[in-house]
């Protein structure tokens, strides 16, 4: 279906090759997963398939790419629209119409298809992706998972032979991600659609993949079945890491296979009790009967919670459960209808300037919102001056977080992880008493997530600070947080130590705990320490 022969790609004004001499043939009905560190060229590879690269971006392309016998050299991306459906990283940026139905019809209208054909196809995809109840809704009012489904539907409506998706689940909660992935699985098996996905959260997708293309970032690629690639890959989901640590010869990819592989081990150890956590008594944030409403609808219903110094609290819950609103209320940028939030015996709404910086550090969903300098150096100098630090302090912190950033680079040219690092070091330079992060791991690879985890744990422990983050990333929560607050529809439905909350919810349980259940272990590290301490 898709053939890359000796493809090399270099972007203009760049000296590094994104891809070098890549040859791969993808058969009909295959699901191929593209993995690699951030900024390694996953998106470029996807966009080569329908010619958006280099037709839209410029750059030098050597070699030949054909899709169903059509070379991308000869046709513009529009000419392949009936063959290839493409769903971008942020579907909201690609929507062209206001309402779901009109969005679905857009591409068919552009192709001048007759009205009765359009009607039929729209009904088909509405059913296929269970979008019928949403058909006349404004797209802007849909949740993230629903928008993702609309984007997939509007690609499928053209009856393409190939579907290309760039990080389809990165912004979704585990349940919505599951929905989207099972739809893709069905499309491959029922319609023999060829699907190519780029994704960071390997634990979500690896079970579905037929083959993996691993991009190293220096032009080299590894291509093979998931088992082959996982043997040599630097990027791997927790299951594979656990298998490596336990020294298994075969690398299982699903929870089921892994449970079978470690059956003997599991049976040979007795179930460990859930360790008792010592309650922390250093209240930093007091939330009392917090109610927040947008246009007469309660987003948060009288929440009560106390957050202590040294705690790392993960706020979890489905898209639209009120996670961001809770964070914004704590930071003092949300109008509160009833109740109160007190941070260090201050009302966060009244904080300004220097005092605000010293009390609350906030990393928004788009870390670049905080940045306005023309270069990394300017950004660091500004932070030093704002907080009366020695010149160079912020940059030293940055160097610790993400080493090797060029001072002269524009913040926009940094990778996702580097930008988050810069925003973090700017916030850290004020040494805030409370640190709040809104979905910090969107678009971060395993490596970047690991260093983020390390930094946050140190920050909370050394300075006895409270860290609060909203996230969908179960594996991150397992590694990082000491406490989980679970929101559903504006109510706290669970609040307790990470171990208790995660183990009690199957959808939000991390892979390791699924494998080792009923043992109270969440991460590879937990298993290793338990085994070393001699439970065997």
């Amino acid at each position: 279906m898709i053939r890359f022969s000796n493809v090399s790609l270099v972007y203009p004004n760049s000296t590094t090759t994104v891809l070098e001499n890549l040859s791969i043939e993808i058969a009909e009905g295959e699901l191929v997963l593209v993995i690699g560190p951030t900024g390694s060229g996953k998106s470029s590879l996807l966009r080569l398939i329908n010619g958006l690269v280099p037709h839209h971006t410029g750059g030098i392309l050597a070699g030949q790419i054909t899709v169903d016998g059509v070379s991308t050299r000869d046709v513009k991306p529009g000419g392949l629209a009936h063959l290839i459906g493409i769903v971008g990283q942020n579907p909201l940026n690609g929507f062209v119409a206001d309402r779901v139905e009109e969005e679905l019809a857009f591409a068919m209208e552009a192709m001048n298809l007759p009205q009765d054909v359009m009607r039929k196809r729209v009904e088909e995809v509405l059913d296929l992706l269970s979008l019928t109840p949403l058909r006349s809704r404004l797209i802007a009012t849909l949740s993230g998972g629903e928008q993702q489904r609309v984007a997939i539907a509007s690609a499928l409506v053209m009856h393409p032979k190939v579907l290309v998706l760039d990080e389809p689940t990165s912004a979704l909660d585990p349940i919505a991600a599951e929905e989207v992935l099972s739809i893709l699985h069905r499309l491959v098996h029922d319609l023999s659609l060829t699907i190519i996905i780029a994704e960071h959260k390997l634990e979500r997708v690896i079970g579905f993949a037929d083959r993996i293309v691993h991009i190293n970032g220096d032009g080299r690629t590894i291509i093979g079945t998931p088992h082959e690639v996982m043997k040599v890959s630097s990027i791997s989901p927790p299951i594979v890491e656990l298998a490596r640590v336990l020294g298994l010869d075969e690398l299982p990819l699903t929870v089921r296979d892994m449970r079978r592989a470690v059956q003997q081990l599991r049976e040979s150890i007795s179930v460990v009790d859930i360790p008792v956590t010592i309650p922390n008594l250093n209240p930093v944030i007091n939330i009392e009967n917090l109610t927040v409403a947008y246009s007469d609808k309660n987003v948060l219903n009288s929440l009560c919670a106390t957050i202590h110094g040294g705690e790392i609290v993960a706020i979890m819950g489905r898209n639209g459960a009120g996670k961001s609103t809770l964070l914004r209320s704590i930071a003092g940028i949300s109008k509160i209808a009833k109740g109160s939030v007190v941070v260090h015996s201050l009302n966060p709404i009244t904080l300004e300037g220097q005092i605000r910086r010293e009390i609350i550090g906030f990393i928004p969903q788009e870390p670049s919102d905080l940045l306005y300098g023309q270069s990394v150096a300017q950004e660091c100098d500004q932070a030093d001056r704002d907080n009366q630090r020695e010149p160079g302090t912020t940059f030293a912190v940055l160097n610790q977080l993400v080493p090797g950033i060029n001072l002269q680079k524009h913040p926009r040219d940094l990778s996702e992880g580097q930008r988050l690092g810069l925003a973090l070091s700017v916030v850290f330079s004020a040494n805030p008493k409370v640190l709040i992060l809104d979905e910090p791991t969107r678009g971060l690879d395993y490596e970047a997530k690991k260093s983020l985890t390390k930094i946050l744990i140190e920050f909370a422990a050394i300075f006895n600070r409270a860290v609060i983050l909203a996230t969908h990333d179960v594996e991150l929560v397992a590694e990082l947080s000491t406490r989980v607050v679970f929101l559903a529809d504006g109510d706290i439905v669970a609040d307790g130590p990470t171990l208790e909350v995660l183990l009690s919810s199957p959808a939000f349980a991390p892979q390791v705990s699924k494998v080792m259940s009923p043992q109270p272990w969440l991460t590879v590290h937990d298993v290793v320490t338990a085994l070393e301490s001699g439970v065997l």
Partner: protein
Amino acid sequence: MKDSPLHPLTWWIWSFVIAVSVVRVNNPYFALGATTVVGFIVLKLREDASWGKSFNWTIKVAVWILLIRTFIGISIGVPIPGNVIFTLPRILVPAWMPGIRIGGAVTAERLTSALSEGVIICAIIVIFGAASSLTSPHRLLRVLPVYIYEFATAVVIATSVLPQLVTSVARIRQAQRLRGQKTKGFTSYRRLAIPLLEESLARSLDLASAMDARGYGTSRLRSRYRPIHWRIKDSAIVASGIFILVLS
């Protein structure tokens, strides 16, 4: 109104007609009246979507234009004799620029003439702002012919990215307040401009490539999933505009 929307061109035609009559009448009170009516219609009918909010920004821009224009009007130009309200310090100009005066006495006549001209210009801006916040840019695009494809692409991008920027401005300001920065004054605009520009560029490119990838403009003809009809109520609205034009 929600079940069968108006034709996307209706409010644009109506606004155009009203704007023409405002220019024809050339009376600030008429202009103010027209602006009030338009404002009422927008508050009543606009949808809760990104483009609906753009009206508030048009008003802000219009007020700024009014202030700047009035200031320039009273401080530079040909003096009009009459009742002196107050006197600005006068800056001397070379002898080869006779009749031009910077600063000096400000008369009531001069102030009113500057104000009334400004009000008319602003009324026109607000009237077109109303049209754009009452009509979804996406629907407007669908009635434009395809052979102006490149132009139409630019229009969609501009009209759909700009309203989104209004939300982005609020978001970025909030983030910067959280960094402990002032969000008022000139320097705050500079801090706002950079992330904003960055985001709008990225968005525009995303949208352009999405449209291209979905075959926009590949066919010279374009079919309609749901035909857009010109209904009686569309005619009624346009007729009301023309009625005002004829009266004026």
